[in-house]
């Protein structure tokens, strides 16, 4: 009772460090962006700080992997198939059916795979991270941690961000393989393509940098998903409803950032790596 009575009249918002400034429209967005980058910088610095929270990292890694592996595999089979069918029908009309393999594989490895991974990491792993950190924040657990002289960024955020990054990289490998196999299966069995043409066009068009860029993308997307989830989780606005909103926002923000960053990375890649089949 006392606690309720104490809490209700106190109009203190849980994010109290907003300075009393005049509100210029759009300023809030810049401030949030700045804080997001500040957290990213703090996390990057804290990665190299001892002691490393190995136990927390392994637990988080295992958790994120366990919630993403199966959905990722199940999504990547139809996705590879769709690309194979679509590209197959297009190349058939153009009379370049022998190149189906290379084209669909490139699309899967370079674009589809990192994005599938990122969406799943953000949707399944990131939302869980955000909800976990958010509920801990409103229960004052993180305050308690700080009071005990333990930095929540180093203790909780760093292991989670590292876990999302590594899971993303490994998952990306798996999705590439499963997606490629799915594409192969649909092209060869359903569209009557020949295994030989599929494989030879693959090795004619694809090169190792395609795989590298795919993994680099996955690494960056994992980092973004982890940071955004942690940022929204550390700053929920008021009560359990605020945590729900924060989870929602973290997923939406991550998606927006991912597609934008993906465009930039693809643009850079196409500029600096010469295409093999030229």
């Amino acid at each position: 009772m006392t606690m309720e009575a104490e809490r209700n009249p106190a109009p203190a918002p849980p994010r109290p460090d907003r300075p009393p400034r005049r509100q210029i429209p759009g300023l809030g967005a810049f401030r949030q962006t700045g804080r997001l980058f500040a957290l990213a910088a703090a996390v990057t610095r804290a990665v190299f700080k001892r002691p490393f929270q190995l136990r927390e990292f392994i637990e988080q890694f295992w958790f994120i992997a366990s919630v993403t592996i199966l959905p990722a595999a199940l999504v990547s089979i139809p996705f590879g198939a769709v690309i194979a069918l679509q590209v197959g029908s297009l190349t058939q009309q153009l009379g370049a059916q022998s190149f189906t393999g290379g084209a669909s594989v490139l699309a899967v490895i370079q674009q589809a795979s990192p994005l599938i991974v990122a969406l799943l990491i953000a949707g399944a792993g990131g939302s869980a991270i955000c909800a976990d950190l958010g509920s801990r924040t409103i229960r004052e657990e993180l305050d308690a941690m700080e009071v005990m002289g333990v930095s929540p960024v180093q203790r909780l955020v760093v292991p989670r961000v590292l876990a999302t990054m590594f899971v993303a990289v490994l998952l990306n490998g798996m999705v590439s393989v499963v997606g490629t196999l799915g594409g192969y299966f649909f092209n060869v069995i359903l569209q009557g393509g020949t295994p030989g043409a599929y494989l030879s066009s693959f090795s004619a068009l694809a090169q190792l940098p395609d795989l590298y860029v795919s993994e680099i993308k996955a690494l960056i997307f994992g980092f973004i998903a982890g940071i955004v989830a942690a940022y929204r989780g550390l700053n929920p606005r008021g009560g359990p409803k605020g945590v729900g909103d924060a989870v929602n926002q973290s997923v939406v923000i991550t998606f927006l950032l991912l597609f934008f960053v993906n465009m930039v990375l693809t643009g850079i890649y196409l500029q600096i790596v010469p295409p093999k089949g030229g």
Partner: protein
Amino acid sequence: MGIEVVVEGLTKSFGKQNIWQDVTLTLPAGEVSVMLGPSGTGKTVFLKSLIGLLKPERGRVLINGVDMVSSPERDIYETRKLFGLMFQDGALFGSMSLFDNIAFPLREHTRKKESEIRRIVMERVDMVGLLGAEEKLPGEISGGMRKRAGLARALVLDPQIILCDEPDSGLDPVRTAFISQLLIDLNAQIDATMLIVTHNLDIAATVPDNMGMLFRRNLVTFGPREVLLTSEEPVVAQFLSGRREGPIGMSEEKDAATLAKEQLNSAPSTAGSPPRRIVPQLEPSPGLPARQAVLRRKLRVMGMLDELPPAARRAVENGMAPAQEATP
């Protein structure tokens, strides 16, 4: 011995709303202080500002030369290891058992062996009366138990400054009395500087060496307990007697019209109210060492005796009658 906490001109606002301003006080080293105040006057905010969780806009909080408001983050983290903070509802880690919760600071900050950790933790668990519950999760125990577990966790690193946020809320009168005794015993054992934020009158009357009160965005007063307990300040008098008549209303403060009407109606009853009696302070349990703070405080208060209001001076002299005989 505990560490002195010096607060200078602290001002805190949330957005446009000012919580309190220009709070200046010194928590004397090793002594027990209580901060009173009606609900919603920012007592918890004050505690969190002392430890650097919230950043006031102006002022300083000096501990060992570190300013908890504006020093580098690294110094603040180091200084926080001197603190034990008991949160209002315990703030235990929901995913850990009580044992792991209480062991957390030890595992983070010391290189003690697990057997050593177990010994210290069980000692603290026993101290707050939670033996047998140490394997439970925070969600499985009552609010009062969570509070006591929070206290045990705050104590596990032998802090030099202990801050308690409403140690009584959610506890029955008997448990509150036990907590009061526990806090005094603690002070006798480890001689830490303590600040208790509360609106419980029993704790306020029996536990502290020093008392302060926050009201209407200001620190009404802070000083030796006698000053507040004998104060004629309307706010303090109303609060300590728990009356409805006075400047404190249901929503923070009454407007002038209500106050005037009230004075008209109840003038005879307030005039005839008996003077408040000063209850003697709690002593440590038998078998524990005497509190070193008592002697230090006596010297300090005697030194400032001339500055105290007459009623407080009389109360101090009455309370220290044996000392008075010894000095001439």
